[in-house]
């Protein structure tokens, strides 16, 4: 798990799979996921779990679903108060795939 040295400046709330998290405004979703120990977020076409790898937008393995259904890179998406994120891997597991 990623430990933060400085005390986190958690000023807003986002929801990941409907669970609330107190986070710092402007942090990337990928940063937040790693701070929360969530290293697997979506599935590759063959079903294997994947998660953040490069943290700079070139690997496309940190995919998350936004509320409007868009699939975006977590490392290129920045936290705003009230944001709701779904992890495609969770939905896939729930669908029994």
């Amino acid at each position, binding site marked *: *798990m*990623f*430990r*933060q*040295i*400085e005390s*986190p400046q958690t000023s807003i709330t986002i929801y990941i799979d409907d669970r609330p998290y107190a986070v*710092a405004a*402007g*942090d*990337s979703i990928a*940063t937040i996921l*790693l*701070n929360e120990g969530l*290293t*697997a977020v979506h599935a*590759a*076409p*063959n079903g*294997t*779990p*994947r*998660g*953040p*790898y*490069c*943290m*700079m*937008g*070139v*690997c*496309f*393995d940190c995919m998350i679903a936004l509320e409007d259904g*868009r699939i975006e890179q977590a490392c*290129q998406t*920045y936290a705003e108060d009230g944001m709701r994120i779904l992890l495609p891997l969770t939905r896939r597991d729930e669908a029994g795939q």
Partner: protein
Amino acid sequence: MTMKSQYDLVIIGAGPAGMAAAIEASNGGLTTLVLDDQPAPGGQVYRHILQNAEKQADIPYLGADYWSGQDLAAAFAASSAAVWPESRVWQITGDKEVFFSRKGAAQCVQAGAVLIATGAMERPMPVCGWTLPGVMSVGAAQTMLKTNGSGADGAVFAGSGPLFYLTIWQYLQAGFAVRAVIDTAPASMTPRHYMLALPALLQPGLLLKGLRWRAEIRRKTEYHCGVASVRIAGDHKVTGLSFRDASGQDQIIEADHLFIHQGVVPNVNLTMATELAHRWCPRQLCWHPQTDMFGESSVGDIFVAGDGMGIAGAAAAASSGRLAAGRIVARAKGASLFLAPIWQALKWRQTAIRPFLDHLFTPPEDWRVPQDETAVVCRCEALTKADVSAAIALGVSGPNQLKTYCRAGMGRCQGRMCSLTIQKMIHDHNGGSEDEIGYLRIRPPIRPLTVGELAALANEDAGK
């Protein structure tokens, strides 16, 4: 769309090259726009530097090289260049229209000249298990440090190169527990290394610093070198790393986080999609856009600067940004380029150490193409070395013809994580020249945009 914004110079990327160019161009009187995909300037090397500057005393572990970027970032923020953050450029046309997406809306600006300063990315490392959750590149670890001072206690580091040693050193300074370091660089130097090290003496500070970091890492961590057969273990996530050590013993080190690195390469997707000419660089084992001494590409008024034109480090990146911008300003004004030789000489001095570093940290063969047939080569489509080899065996001239036999390169990343691997596999099979085998044919959009975004881009001339 009919009323596009116009700028004399559009710069893509706000790393050291982009920032230096923006300062130079705007001071030179050009209307300048910087499109950067991050929320704040700095690129990768100076990520988050303006926010971090307020608490510099609290984060000494990032090191002097990082903090040396402060002045540049501050000057950039104070310059008259327009900056649009969180802007993802997805196409540059031959007419120098720059298409990008910002906050879910696709837009276009018209540029008089374009400077592509999109920098580098880490080389793909298709070792067995590299796709497991918990495995990340060393650059990713450094990004977490810079972003909010986060690190993974008990992490294992494997690989080599300047960024590798720097990040481990930063972890040690910050007080994170480093479980082990597996150094894949040669354990001892050859005569060739010593020969190449001679010009490196022009940058003695860099040489000494590197030696110091490596010594401290050897002292303070469980350090292994001269290893072989590195494999990442785990089923649904990483559980550890196995390898054969220098004495021939098989070892396994357990870890929940593993950071790997084998150097950086220019991120060529935008330059390739813009149809600039490229050439294979055998020394750095990557593609470089072909440019003149100022960074002008094979397409007039489209320039490249920084690590995106060849790996040379942050200081050289800033110099190349200034060179390119200086050229563009001079052309706009019809002035002479008497300052150019100064930047050129400085850049030459700043890159004197490169041949030594490139040779010392050449990625091992089995990190470029895996030995293991089950190792994933194309991450996006989950294709293994065996899948790709089977297609190559059918007879292909390059990565593009390979796409007619298997889906390698057809995923979201458009070859960033696999094209170099595929190219080497084809070269190993076919022989010939790397320039002939080539890279995947990269086409716009080089970043995804939604169907809805594109639908909202009106173009009355379509469908003629």
